[in-house]
């Protein structure tokens, strides 16, 4: 691709992506579009049954009635995670109908969506815009897709829908529990997901909304996590997902002794520098290290008699334990990772569903992320300027989505908790392969062999001095990694841009290039 322009992060990016002009990244807080929010077509209730029953016999019929045709954008949410049957079913039907050139716009994809690779090959799907994990990412890196992949954070996806950057034609929303009017939630049924936070923006902005459930209940389905008034059709199917895969995945505290050291150092750092304190707000992810950090912070809070005002994030039993014993007052829940969290949502008034729009949308009236005292995140790479990468590995291959990672960087204190190297692959490097987060927003990097504080955070440097914690410069960490692993060679890319990484404000932060010699 020619005409690349150097953006404010020093990365060459294209002026347009898939035929649409884009804005190069201008710096944190610099880009402020002047426009109005996008809006869906206006429906009339005269076109809907007076008895409120919007049930349609099959998903195929619902898609045909919604006007499915070539080139449309179809969205799905990822609350069913690796157990999702609905997204695959949508494209099976599209393929059967001979529809071509669809754009799939999921809030995230999982290994179960490998099923869609033949549809990418035969043109049923022209492109995917969403967090890409596993084989779909590798497929992208091999340069085998028609359209350039667009990677957005969870908040960036909300922003793109709201700003009209992505117009959803049909939102197909899996719902573990729904009534014939379309009111729905994730709390019950055989495929319970707890919340449906990622679906909220889709149902508000899509032209057509189809709710797909395997658990149809009589009106009213309460609570209404999805409001039926946004819904065009309701489809009852045998099964929307595999429960064991919906609640599976990375929801165990790590048992790896070196990962536990990282978690313990993180918790000690938070306590010693006062980042975590009585009344603070924290985020917790569902990765093994994050969960271990949460359990250590639980002990820290108990020991000091602190009450955490709110915990936010992907919820697991480890957060629920804090709520139960009063260490935490509220859980704001955007995604549920285990059945204990579902039980808690049903039982505890202090545990409530929270929409993505309210948390992460950068083009909105306030950014919840900036109110969080501490977030701990992972990364595939961090460089000596504290820049972070979460989407590609050091070999250049796209394997992960951005998720909420970029959005969380706005917290008061952002800690990246990572091993210094994974097997022989250094995590602390000279320069990130793909830039996903500017270093100015990353405050601390905790590894099993030392903690580096961003020089911009002179306050934290002062507070951490004399705490006995193993403080190093980021350069020292990088040199330690290289001393152990050796200096890595650079992966080889072609000139072809296969994907772009968007910043939270919709500007283009970096590109992902085709990797030579895979596939």
């Amino acid at each position, binding site marked *: 691709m020619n005409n690349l322009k150097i953006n404010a992060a020093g990365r060459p990016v294209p002026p347009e992506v898939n035929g649409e002009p884009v804005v190069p990244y201008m710096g944190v807080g610099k880009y402020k579009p002047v426009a109005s929010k996008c809006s869906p077509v206006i429906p009339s209730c005269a076109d809907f049954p007076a008895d409120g029953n919007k049930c349609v016999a099959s998903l195929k019929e619902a898609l045909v009635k919604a006007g499915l045709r070539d080139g449309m954008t179809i969205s799905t949410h990822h609350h069913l995670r690796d157990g999702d049957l609905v997204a695959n079913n949508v494209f099976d039907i599209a393929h059967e109908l001979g529809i071509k050139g669809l754009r799939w716009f999921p809030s995230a994809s999982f290994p179960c969506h490998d099923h869609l690779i033949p549809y990418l090959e035969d043109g049923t799907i022209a492109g995917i815009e969403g967090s890409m994990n596993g084989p779909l990412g590798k497929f992208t890196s091999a340069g085998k897709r028609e359209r350039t992949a667009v990677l957005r954070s969870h908040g960036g996806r909300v922003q793109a829908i709201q700003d009209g950057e992505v117009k959803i034609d049909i939102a197909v929303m899996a719902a573990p529990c729904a009534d014939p009017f379309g009111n729905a939630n994730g709390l019950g049924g055989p495929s319970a997901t707890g919340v449906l936070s990622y679906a909220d923006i889709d149902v508000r902005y899509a032209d057509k909304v189809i709710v797909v459930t395997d658990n149809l209940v009589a009106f009213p389905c309460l609570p209404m996590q999805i409001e039926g008034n946004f819904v065009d059709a309701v489809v009852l199917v045998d099964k929307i997902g595999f429960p064991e895969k919906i609640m599976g995945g990375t929801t165990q505290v790590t048992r790896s*002794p070196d990962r536990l050291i990282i978690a313990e150092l993180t918790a000690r750092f938070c306590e010693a520098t006062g980042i975590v304190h009585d009344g603070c707000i924290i985020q917790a992810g569902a990765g093994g290290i994050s969960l271990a950090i949460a359990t250590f912070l639980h002990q820290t809070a108990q020991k000091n008699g602190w009450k955490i005002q709110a915990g936010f994030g992907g919820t697991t039993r480890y957060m629920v334990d804090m709520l139960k014993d009063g260490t935490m007052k509220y859980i704001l829940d955007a995604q549920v990772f285990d059945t204990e969290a579902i039980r808690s949502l049903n039982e505890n008034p202090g545990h409530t569903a929270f929409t993505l729009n309210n948390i992460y949308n950068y083009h909105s009236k306030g950014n919840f992320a900036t109110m969080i005292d501490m977030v701990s995140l992972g990364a595939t790479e961090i460089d000596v300027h504290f820049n972070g990468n979460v989407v590609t590995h050091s070999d250049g291959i796209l394997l992960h989505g951005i998720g909420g990672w970029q959005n969380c960087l706005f917290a008061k204190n952002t800690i990246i908790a990572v091993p210094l190297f994974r*097997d022989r692959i250094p995590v602390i490097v000279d320069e990130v392969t793909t830039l996903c987060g500017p270093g100015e927003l990353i405050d601390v990097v905790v590894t099993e062999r030392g903690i580096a504080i961003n020089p911009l955070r002179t306050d934290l440097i002062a507070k951490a001095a004399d705490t006995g914690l193993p403080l190093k410069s980021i350069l020292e960490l990088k040199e330690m990694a290289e001393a*152990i692993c*050796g200096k890595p*060679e650079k992966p080889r890319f072609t000139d072809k841009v296969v994907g772009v990484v968007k910043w939270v404000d919709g500007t283009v932060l970096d590109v992902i290039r085709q990797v030579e010699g895979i596939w």
Partner: protein
Amino acid sequence: MEAISGNRGTEVRSDCFIRIVPDDEPGIRIRLKSKVKSLYGQSIHQLVQEELNFFGIRDATVEIEDSGALPYVIAARVEAAVRQITGTGQEFLLPELPQNRYSTERDKLRRSRLYIPGNNPKLIINAGLYHSDAIILDLEDSVSPEKKPEARILVRNALRNNDMMGIELMVRINQLPLGLQDLEMVARQPLNLILIPKCESAETVLTVRAKIEECRDTGEGPVWLMPIIESAQGLRNAYEIAEATPAVAALAIGLEDYLADIGAERTHGAEESFYARSVVVNAARAAGIQPIDSVFSDFGDNEQLLRVAANSKKMGFDGMGCIHPGQINVIHEAFNPTFPEIEKAKTIVMAYGKAAAEGLGVVAVGSKMIDLPVMKRAQTTIEKAVTTGLIPKEWREIQHE
């Protein structure tokens, strides 16, 4: 003929599997399958070429299945395969890490020693991270008989090239005579102590010491010995073993084998081992060295470990073995002097000092008379508290303030 070494499989990480097939086709052909190929492919090629060249292998096909092995691991695996082909005794050594060369004191703190299986690179890499008092690279029970030769080379390379972060370095060799081959490979390397398993006589200890002296220059620092009593016969000779040579720094007991040998069963209450453990404590103390207890084998039950370790300390042991990093802090907690113990010891030492200064013959704290053994015990407690960082070295000045 072909030679293989190393490990592969979905569970294997940080290791590599190597197959070398010498043939008549000129040159070295390397087939590399590696998850880090795009990052280290060239350097792996270079290393293997250089090493084969060193061993004089010119014509061969080399297959490498790499799961992210560090260079010293790859070098060890190649050497192990080459030795099978040529029978060479030459050693391919990467430059030794200077920070791994240090000496330790005979009576240094040895509360915990972490066992690391000698043929598992994944566990060796981070062995220094957990703040145990010592690391044991094990060539004995954790290595299967057919893997002994390659494990020996891996352990040698690990001692030289894996950053051990200043922790006392121990190797558990095999029972003699196999253990002598282990010593030939490791004795010259950065190393502080050799564990002698299933030791039954002073003669064994002296044979080991002689072998070490034969291999190692005196300038390369002392290598202490820790014989392990694991049989009825060994227990009978415990004292002779303990005082066989001043190189013996500690005497340990290995309960699994010992109890099997005497036909006893291991129970929660540990009555069956009380005698043997007491004998080991007594023999070690009589010889002026450290008595060290066995390992606790359930790494999922740290509550029971704490009870066992506390009991061990009460019996007079100075430390015990760890089979998992998660056991280290528990063991330290158990063997560290407690706060009341430290306070009592401070009072005694201060009172004793004051009495001595005033020329008094009899010292009392409250209504209790303090004699020399009580004073000595208090001093030991204080020393331990200082070494473990529980109290500052200048505690006396702080006490006065």
